[in-house]
C-alpha cells in the first residue's frame, strides 16, 4: 500500500506478509468451517425431508417429531436463564462493588473453576446428588401448591424432572455469565459512580443509577451467551432428565419434554437410515435456532452500542 506522499513503493516485509496472510486465512477458515458444518448437516438431513421417508414408525414427519424437542430445548433453557440471571448479576455486583479486592479475586478464580467442570460430571452430580436432595421439596410443592399448573401432575419419585434440569443448566451457565457481567460492571465510568455518590445516593442507589443502566447491554449479551450454552447442552440433560415425547409445562413429573441435543445423544447410536437423517435434521434446526438467537442478541446490543461494555 503506498501512501500519497511517497514516490517509491514501500518494500513489503516478509513478516508482515506472512502475518496478514495468516490472519486472513484464519478468518476465512472460520467462515469456511461454519459453512461446511451447515452444508454437512443439510446434506445428511436431506433424506428426512423427503415426503416418502420411512422412519420405522418412530415419527410421522419432521415437524410433528421435532416440535416437542424444540419446546423442551427452549423451556429448559428459559428456566435456566430465569434462575441464573439474577444470581449472575448478584455475584458480579458483589465482586465488583462490595467485596474487598483480594477476596473478589479469589471469588473470581473459583467462578472460573466452576466453568471448567465437564458437563458429564454435572449430569452425574445431578442424578446422584441433586435429584434425591430436591425430591422432598418437589413432593411438598406438588402437595401444597399443586393447583398451579406448573406444579401439577404425578410427582416423580426420583426427582429427575425439568426443574432439576433447569437448575443444573443454571449452574452450568452461571460462571460464564457472572464473569462477563463482572467485566462489564468493572468498566462502569468512575465519574458516573462518583457523581451519584456525591449527590447523596446510597451504595445501592448508586448501583441502580450508574452501574446497572451502563451494564444492561452487557447483561443481555451475557444472557444470550448463557442461553446459547444451555440450548446446546447435551450430556447433563441426557443423564438427568426422564423424557417423554410430549409437550408439557409441568415441572415436577416424570414426563418431560426432552431437548434436541439430548435426544440425538440418546437415539443416535442405534439409529440407521432415514431415522438417522431425521435426527440430523433436528440438529440442523437447533443450529438455526441458536443462530437466530445470536443474531437477536447482536441486534439488541447494537442498539445501545455506545454504552456497551462488550465493544
Amino acid at each position, binding site marked *: 500500500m503506498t501512501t500519497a506522499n511517497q514516490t517509491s513503493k514501500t518494500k513489503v516485509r516478509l513478516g508482515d506478509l506472512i502475518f496478514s496472510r495468516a490472519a486472513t486465512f484464519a478468518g476465512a477458515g472460520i467462515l469456511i468451517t461454519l459453512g461446511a458444518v451447515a452444508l454437512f448437516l443439510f446434506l445428511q438431513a436431506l433424506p428426512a425431508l423427503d415426503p416418502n421417508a420411512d422412519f420405522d414408525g*418412530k415419527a410421522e414427519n419432521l415437524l410433528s417429531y421435532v416440535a416437542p424437542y424444540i419446546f423442551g430445548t427452549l423451556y429448559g433453557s428459559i428456566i435456566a436463564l430465569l434462575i441464573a440471571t439474577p444470581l449472575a448479576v448478584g455475584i458480579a455486583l458483589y465482586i465488583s462493588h462490595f467485596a474487598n479486592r483480594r477476596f473478589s479475586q479469589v471469588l473470581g478464580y473459583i467462578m472460573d473453576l466452576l466453568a471448567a467442570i465437564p458437563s458429564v460430571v454435572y449430569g452425574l452430580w445431578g*442424578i*446422584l446428588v441433586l*435429584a*434425591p436432595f430436591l*425430591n422432598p421439596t418437589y413432593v411438598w410443592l406438588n402437595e401444597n401448591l399443586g393447583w398451579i399448573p406448573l406444579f401439577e401432575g*404425578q410427582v*416423580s*419419585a*426420583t*426427582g*429427575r424432572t425439568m426443574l432439576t434440569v433447569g437448575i443444573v443448566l443454571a449452574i452450568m451457565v452461571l460462571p460464564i455469565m457472572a464473569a462477563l457481567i463482572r467485566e462489564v460492571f468493572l468498566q462502569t465510568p468512575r465519574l458516573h459512580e462518583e457523581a451519584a455518590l456525591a449527590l447523596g445516593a446510597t451504595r445501592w442507589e448508586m448501583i441502580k443509577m450508574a452501574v446497572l443502566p451502563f451494564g444492561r447491554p452487557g447483561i443481555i449479551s451475557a444472557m444470550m451467551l448463557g442461553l446459547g450454552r444451555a440450548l446446546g447442552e447435551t450430556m447433563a440433560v*441426557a*443423564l438427568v*432428565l*426422564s*423424557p*417423554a*415425547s*410430549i409437550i408439557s409445562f409441568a415441572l415436577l413429573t*416424570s*414426563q418431560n419434554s*426432552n431437548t434436541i441435543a439430548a435426544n440425538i445423544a*440418546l*437415539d443416535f*447410536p*442405534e*439409529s*440407521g437410515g432415514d431415522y438417522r437423517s431425521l435426527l440430523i435434521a433436528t440438529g440442523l434446526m437447533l443450529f438455526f435456532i441458536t443462530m437466530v438467537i445470536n443474531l437477536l442478541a447482536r441486534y439488541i446490543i447494537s442498539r445501545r452500542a455506545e454504552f456497551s461494555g462488550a465493544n
Partner: protein
Amino acid sequence: MSKLAKLIAVAGASALVLAGCATNEAAPTATSTATESAGGSTSTEETVAPLEGTLDGSGASSMASGQEAWVAGFQLLNPGVTVNYNPTGSGTGRDQFEQGLTFFTGSDSALKDEEIATPHPNCSPADGPMFEFPIWISPIAIIFNLDGIDSLNMTPDTVAQIFTGEITKWNDSRIAADNPGVSLPNLNITAVHRSDESGTTANFTDTIAKAAPNTWLLNGENAGKFEAWPAEWGGEGGQGTSGVIAAIAAGQGTIGYADASRAGDFGTVAFGVGGEFVPYSAEAAAKIVDISPLVEGRPDSMLTYNLDRDTTESGVYPIVLVSYLQGCMDYADDAKAELVKAYASYMLSAEGQQYASDSAGNAPISDALRQKAQAIIDQVK
C-alpha cells in the same frame, strides 16, 4: 525468556502434540503366566504357526464388557493378534460390516433378508453366504426397590399392567394374589424404562407382548415389540443400563428392567412361566435358545432363532437378550478368515464363555448350541 529457551519450548510442545497423533502399535506382551480361567485348551486349528494380525469388529454395546473379557483372554493366548471391538451399537455395526470396515459384527438383532442380500466387500464372493449364531445370552432382570423384599412373584399380565400404568400401587390385589405372606407397602409404583433406544427394551417388550397379549395394550391394541417407550404409559426414563439402575436406586417403590448382571442388591421378580414362577438364572436363560425353533428359510450357516417367549416349558426364563455373531463364510482375505475362526472358536468355547461370564455376567451358552455353532465356524475359510 531467551530465544533458545523459546525454541526448545516450541520443539518440546510440538513433539508432544505429534506423538499424540501417532497410531499406537498395540502389541500385547505375552505374560508367561496365563490366568487359569483364560488358559483353556486352544482348539486344534491353531497348531502350525502362531496367529498374527489385527482383527476389527464392531456392534452391540450390550456385549461390550463381554468382548473386553474375550479380547483380553484371546490376546493372552495369541500374543501376535490384536482384536478390536468397537461397541458402536448394532445398527452402526451392521453398517460398518456392509462397508467392509470390519470383519465380524455383534448384533442384538438378526440380519434381515435385505441385509443378507447386500454385497459385503470382505466376503468372496461379495454376496456369498454369511454365518450368524447366538454368542451372547444376557438375562434381563426385572428389578425393584422395596425395603426388605428380595423377590416377588409376578405373572406376565401383572408385569404388563405395571409397565403400562394400569397397576399403580404396590399393594394392589393383583400383585398380592401371587405373593401370599409378603406385606406390600401402600406406595406408588414408578416404572422405569430406557430413554434411549435399546436392544434390552426390544427384548423385554417382545417377551411381554407375546406372554401377555391381552394386557400389553396401547390404545386398545397389542403394543408389540418396540425400542422407544410410548409417552402414554408414563414412568421414568433412564439413559443406558446405568441410568435405569440409578433411577431405581434413587426412589422407593421403583421397578424397572435391566441387564441382570447389574441387579446387585435390589429385589428381583420371579417371572411366571407355565404356572411356575422362575427367577432369573444363567441356566434358565440359556435354556430358551435350546427350546426355540429356528427361523425358516435361512441357509444352514445361519442359526437364527425365533425365540419362543410365551413358552410354558418348566425352568425357562424367557426375558433374555440374545446377541448374534455375524460374519462371512468365505473371506476374501484368508488370513482374516483364520483370525475370525480362532476368535469365534474362543468365544464359543466353554472357557471363553465362562471367562466372560465371570466379569460381564452373561449366561454361558449351552453345549448343544456350542456344538452347532462350532460346526459352522469350522467351515469358514
